[in-house]
Structure formats: structure tokens, C-alpha cells
């Protein structure tokens, strides 16, 4: 199961806010000029990211430029889909001036690192004590490491949690046990299923919570481990919950594209619970687009096996890197550290929890995340423990061979099982065969 010691993001911030200033001073002394060098306190930076500018980046950049008037920053938003990522890759490769960029997902960043598009920031991270949890040898691992080197730092950490319609829970007189497991979840979902309302959107991500990082790979990543009983158990749980109507039928999910628009179904009361991450809260706060009259409550993810430690199904995200071709790598590092230190202030309104949290500011972050109508829309007290719980263990993958293809194979085959076109046994055999082939293809 890997290392169960925890990364506490609260311990990180310490003096990170001052690191940008330190970088400036170091640059002035001319001791840390990277290949692209430049000055750490002047220049024009181009930053590419997937978050709409108005959802945080604009404010963060305005604050940065106020503090560093010598550096001008232009933010370009790319859509985080296949064509958007290809556009970023071509631009990075083709010499478009990009100094910093965000990647979303281990598969994307690993391709960029392997292609030499990212600057090796191992030493820079090492020299910044506040970034110690993101160093290559940090324990527990809180960052993606490539051959012992650091090329990125996650700016967001989004733990998974269960978001529930509190009114439905209260009406049914249901108390969620603190140490609940997936069987409790199933039982509660069954009780909440009435008429057109399902207890849950889908079943909890059983295999991820049991296996944690590199869940698809056998030791060394030379083959898959789809035959692990955790996959079968998870799939059988999904099937059982669908069969007793406690989750939405897969047909309905696919026909209405609810994998992309699950917020619409949740906020219109079509199901009562879902495992999700912080981004969902911005939809809850948007009562104009998603009008609803119930409050929502947060719970920790149910354990796969009662009483046993498990992984959280959340993720590190917003992987910030400096371009290898940047001519202003010192100024880029100044911005890099500023973003990490201040994401908690400016990026939260877009539903992104920072990887670096000032313990004194958790209430502010929560206020910003829940919005102005927090007292009527949320059971506020339930959120702080799940969003800022330092004891959760979020997995960080280390093997990426054929990862995108394997995820697609698993998704498509799981759909087939839930649509009644494949048995669980066939799923295991078929997915194993295809996943091994994908690893071989690389």
C-alpha cells in the first residue's frame, strides 16, 4: 500500500511568501542564473494555464505585478482537452514564448518532461525550505518525480470527499457514522433512493482507495495488475448498487452526459450523494445557474474496508512548470513561488484548493470557497475537517506507461459491464489483456 505517513500542507507555507523576495535577492547576486537566466525582478512572462483568467489568475497576476512591478505577466488560457493540450505542446515545441505552464494529470506532465520541455527545478526546490514536501526524496511523496528529478510542483491539492444533500439525509433520519465504509455507504444510498431520486451518483472508487498510487501497474510497471481482487470487488460494488437502484443507471449517465455535468443532476435533486472534489462547490454556490433549495453537507470518503487505513481518491493538480526554453527563468521562478504562496488567496474562488495552505488562513479559504450564501447553502462545519484534513493520503503516481490508454480501456469496459454487455469475469480478462498491450506499446 505504500507509505502511510502524511504530507501536511499546513507546514509548508511558513516563509514561502518571502521566497519570491529571496529569489529576487539571489538573482541580484547573480548566483542562480538558469540556462535561460534573465533577471529575477524584471522581464515579460507568458503563462499558459487551463483555468479561465477571470476565475483567479487575473487577480493573482495583478497582485504579483503590484509586488514585482518590473515583471509583466501575460496569461493565456488553453482548454484542457485533447486539442488544447496539443496546442500547448506544439507551442512549447515550436518556440512560442512560453515561460511557465500548467499541466493537468500525470500522463500529460510525464510526456512533457520526457520530451525535454520542462526545466529541471530539483535544485531550486531543494534550496527553498518551504518547498521541502515537494522535493524528490520527500516522504510521503507529494510531487511527481522523474528519474529522481523535479520538473513541476502541484499548485493544487484536492482531497476527495462525499458531498450529500443534507435535507434528504435529515428527512430520512440518517446519521452517517464517522468511520463509515463502502457497505455503510451502499446501505445509506439504498435508504435514500426514493421515486426518481437515487441515493448516489456512482459507487465509490474502491480500487483507487485500496491500491493507491500506480494502481494499474504490477511492480516495476512492466505489466498491469488488473487481476488484483480490488478491481473485481469495486466493479461488483458498482454493479450491485446500480442493480438495486441506489446509483443512477449507466444508461442515464451516458445518455445525458452526466459524467461531465453531474452537478446539474445533483443540484436538481436527482441523487443524494456523490464522491467529489472541491471544484463541485463552485456550482453549489452558483444559485443562478443551478437554483436549489437544500443545504449540502460534506463527509470523508467511506473506507473500502472498515477500520483499515486507505488512500484518498483525490489528487494533486495544477502542475506548474517552467519551460526549458524560457529566456527568463529567474523571473519565472519568482512568479512560480509567488503562485504557490498565493494560490490560497486568489485561486480558491474558482474551486481550486491550494497545495500550500497557511494554517491561519483556512477560514478565509473556506469562506472564499463557499461563497456569500454559505450559511444557507452549506452545513459549513462539515467542510473544514474534510478539506483541510492533514491525515488524508492522496496518491501520487510514479509510472505513466500507457496511462491514458489504460484509463480509457478501464472506463469503456466498465461502461460495458454496467450496460449489461459484459460480465465481471470478461472485464477482468479483457481489460488485463488490453492494459498489458497498452503498456507494451508504451
Amino acid at each position, binding site marked *: 500500500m505504500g507509505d502511510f505517513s502524511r504530507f501536511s500542507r499546513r507546514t509548508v507555507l511558513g516563509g514561502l511568501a518571502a521566497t519570491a523576495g529571496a529569489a529576487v535577492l539571489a538573482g541580484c547576486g547573480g548566483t542562480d542564473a538558469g540556462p535561460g537566466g534573465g533577471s529575477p525582478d524584471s522581464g515579460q512572462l507568458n503563462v499558459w494555464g487551463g483555468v479561465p483568467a477571470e476565475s483567479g489568475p487575473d487577480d493573482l497576476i495583478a497582485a504579483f505585478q503590484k509586488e514585482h512591478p518590473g515583471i509583466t505577466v501575460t496569461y493565456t488560457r488553453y482548454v484542457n482537452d485533447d*486539442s488544447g493540450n496539443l496546442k500547448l505542446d506544439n507551442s512549447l*515545441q515550436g518556440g512560442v514564448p512560453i515561460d511557465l505552464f500548467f499541466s493537468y494529470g500525470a500522463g500529460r506532465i510525464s510526456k512533457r518532461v520526457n*520530451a525535454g520541455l520542462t526545466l529541471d527545478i530539483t535544485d531550486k526546490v531543494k534550496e527553498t525550505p518551504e518547498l521541502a514536501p515537494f522535493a524528490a526524496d520527500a516522504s510521503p511523496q507529494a510531487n511527481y518525480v522523474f528519474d529522481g528529478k523535479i520538473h513541476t510542483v502541484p499548485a493544487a491539492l484536492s482531497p476527495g470527499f462525499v458531498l450529500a444533500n443534507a435535507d434528504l439525509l435529515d428527512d430520512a433520519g440518517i446519521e452517517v457514522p464517522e468511520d463509515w465504509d463502502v457497505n455503510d455507504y451502499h446501505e445509506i444510498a439504498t435508504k435514500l433512493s426514493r421515486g426518481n431520486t437515487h441515493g448516489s451518483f456512482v459507487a465509490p472508487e474502491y480500487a483507487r482507495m485500496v491500491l493507491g498510487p500506480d494502481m494499474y501497474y504490477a511492480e516495476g510497471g512492466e505489466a498491469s495488475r488488473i487481476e488484483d481482487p480490488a478491481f473485481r470487488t469495486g466493479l461488483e460494488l458498482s454493479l450491485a448498487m446500480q442493480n438495486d437502484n441506489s446509483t443512477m443507471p449507466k*444508461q442515464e449517465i451516458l445518455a445525458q452526459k452526466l459524467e461531465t455535468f453531474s452537478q446539474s443532476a445533483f443540484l436538481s435533486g436527482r441523487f443524494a450523494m456523490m464522491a467529489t472534489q472541491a471544484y463541485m462547490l463552485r456550482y453549489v454556490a452558483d444559485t443562478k445557474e443551478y437554483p436549489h433549495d437544500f443545504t449540502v453537507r460534506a463527509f470523508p470518503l467511506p473506507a473500502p474496508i472498515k477500520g483499515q487505513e486507505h488512500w484518498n481518491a483525490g489528487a494533486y493538480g495544477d502542475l506548474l512548470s517552467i519551460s526549458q526554453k524560457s529566456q527568463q527563468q529567474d523571473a519565472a521562478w519568482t512568479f512560480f513561488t509567488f503562485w504557490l504562496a498565493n494560490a490560497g488567496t486568489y485561486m480558491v474562488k474558482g474551486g481550486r484548493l491550494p497545495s500550500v495552505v497557511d494554517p491561519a488562513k483556512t477560514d478565509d479559504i473556506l469562506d472564499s470557497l463557499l461563497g456569500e450564501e454559505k450559511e444557507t447553502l452549506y452545513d459549513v462545519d462539515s467542510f473544514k475537517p474534510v478539506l483541510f484534513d492533514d491525515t488524508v493520503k492522496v496518491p501520487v503516481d510514479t509510472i505513466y506507461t500507457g496511462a491514458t*490508454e489504460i484509463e480509457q480501456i478501464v472506463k*469503456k*469496459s466498465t461502461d460495458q459491464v454496467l450496460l449489461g*454487455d459484459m460480465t465481471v469475469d470478461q472485464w477482468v480478462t479483457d481489460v488485463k489483456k488490453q492494459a498489458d498491450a497498452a503498456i507494451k506499446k508504451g
Partner: protein
Amino acid sequence: MAVDTVTATAPPAAAPQPKRRNRRSRRTPTRVGWLFILPNVLGFVAFTLIPLIAGLGIAFTDWNVVSGLSGIDFVGLKNFQVLLTDTKFWESVLRTLFFAGITVPGTMILGVLLALALNRDVPGKIALRTIFFIPHIVSSIAVGMVWLLLLNPQSGVVNLGLGRLGVSDPPDWLVSQTWGLPSLVLISIWSGVGYCAIIYLAALQSMPPDLLEAAKLDGANAFQRFTTVIWPALMPTTTFLAVTMLISHSQGFGLIAFLTGGGPGDSTTVLSYYMYSEGFQFYRFGYAAAIGVMSFIGVLILTAILWRFQKGRGLYT
């Protein structure tokens, strides 16, 4: 004398001049012609010819586009060898043949019937022509969105209608492995019929009326007039539509990407979507280019067969 001599010798010296002018005057229209088509030629070269040649070249490489040009590895025929034993590839070929093989004739048959109907004195025929043509000019995403709602297994109008008609277990349409591809065929036919009808209508209206009159005078009934006069007259149009639609439907992508994403399972993964997955999702551009080359060859062969088939069958050939 001297003047006379000069005068006498002058004409031979001047004689070539008109020839040069002729050559220049012949060249000028050619140059002007080239200038007129230059923007188009430049666009063709930049966005079709060069990518086509580059695509052919990439098919013989193992290339992850993120690595740039330095990441190109020449692998010879390896991609094609792998393709030949790739069951997903052959399954997608069969699905493409099914998709194009039903959509193209289906659209054309309904198109010609619609054109024949609209060629008569139907009240409001101008408005009807516009209405039938609208699906062709509407964005495929908008078309997809409408059909997504219509074919919803639970709340879609189609299944509600079938329920009223007593069908107890109507298909799940786009979310069914069995019905996914037929649903896409249905939608593609619907959106293409208007276009076919308008092209056929233009052909019908440019047909010499004396041919039909002669056939009538000879006592041919409506069916005989269609089979012996109208259909042969429409043959060039039919060939044009068959070729262009075969090409476009063997590359059909937008609707599939939006409506099914190649699923459920791989049940709607046609060649173009398989190529997209390999290239743009898994970044195997060499392999994707090899799929593109095979697809190109396949369409070329089918087009040649069609061309050969229609030769000598038209009224004017």
C-alpha cells in the same frame, strides 16, 4: 538607293516582332489565370498537399509530437505490420464500411425521392426545399444535441412515441452497443437527405423536358420513365454524390466524437475516431498516420470502383 536598300531589308528584320507579341499575348492570359487561382493553389499546397505528403512520411515513423522533429524515429513498415494484426483496426474498418455503406445509399435514395416530390407542383415547395436543406448547414454539434435529446432512452421523444405504439422494450439508441452505430447512421442520413435532394433537384430541373415528353408519347408509364429516362439522366449527379459522400462519411468524425466518443465500448469507433484516439489521445502519431494512409487507400479504391461502375451508364455517356 541606300534608302531603297534599307527599305527593302527592313521587313525581314521586323518580321519576328509580331511573333514575339503573339507569344507574349498567349502567355499573358495564362499568367492572369494563374494569378486568379494562386490563393487557392497556395491554400491547397499549404493545407492539403504538404500535410498529405508529411502524413505519408510520418506513417513510416514512430513520432511523439511532444518531442518535436528531433523525436522522429524512422521505423520503416513497422506501423503497417502492426496494423495488419491489430484487431481494433480491422473492427473499425468493418464499422466504417457499415456506417458509410448504409449512410451513403440511404441518403441518396431518400434524397432522390425527396427531389422527385419537390420537383412537382407542391404547395410551398420553396419553403420546403429550405427546410430540408437546413440540417446540412447547421453545425453538427447542434444536430447532435437535438438527437441526443430525441434518442434519450428514458425521456426521449422517439422512445416515448414507440412506447405509445406498444413497443415495450425500445432500443437504448446511442448508449447501446447494438444500436449505437445504427443510431449514428440514422442521424447522418437525416442530416444529409436535404443536401442530396437539392443537388438532385438541380439535375432534374436541368434535364431536357422533351425527353420525358417523348417517353410519354411513346406510352411509357411513370416507373418506366424513371428507369429509362430520369435515372440515366441523373447518373453523373449520382456519381458525384456517391463519391463525395463516400469520402466524407468514411471520415465522419464530429457527430461520433460528440455523441458517443466511440462507445459504448468500441461499438462506434470507426476508422477516423480510431485514428484520432491513437494520434491525439495517445500521442502515437506515426501509427495514426499509418491508419490515415490505409484509410486513404481504401477510399481511393472504393472511389475507383464507383467511377468504373458508372462509366457508360449515364444518359449522356
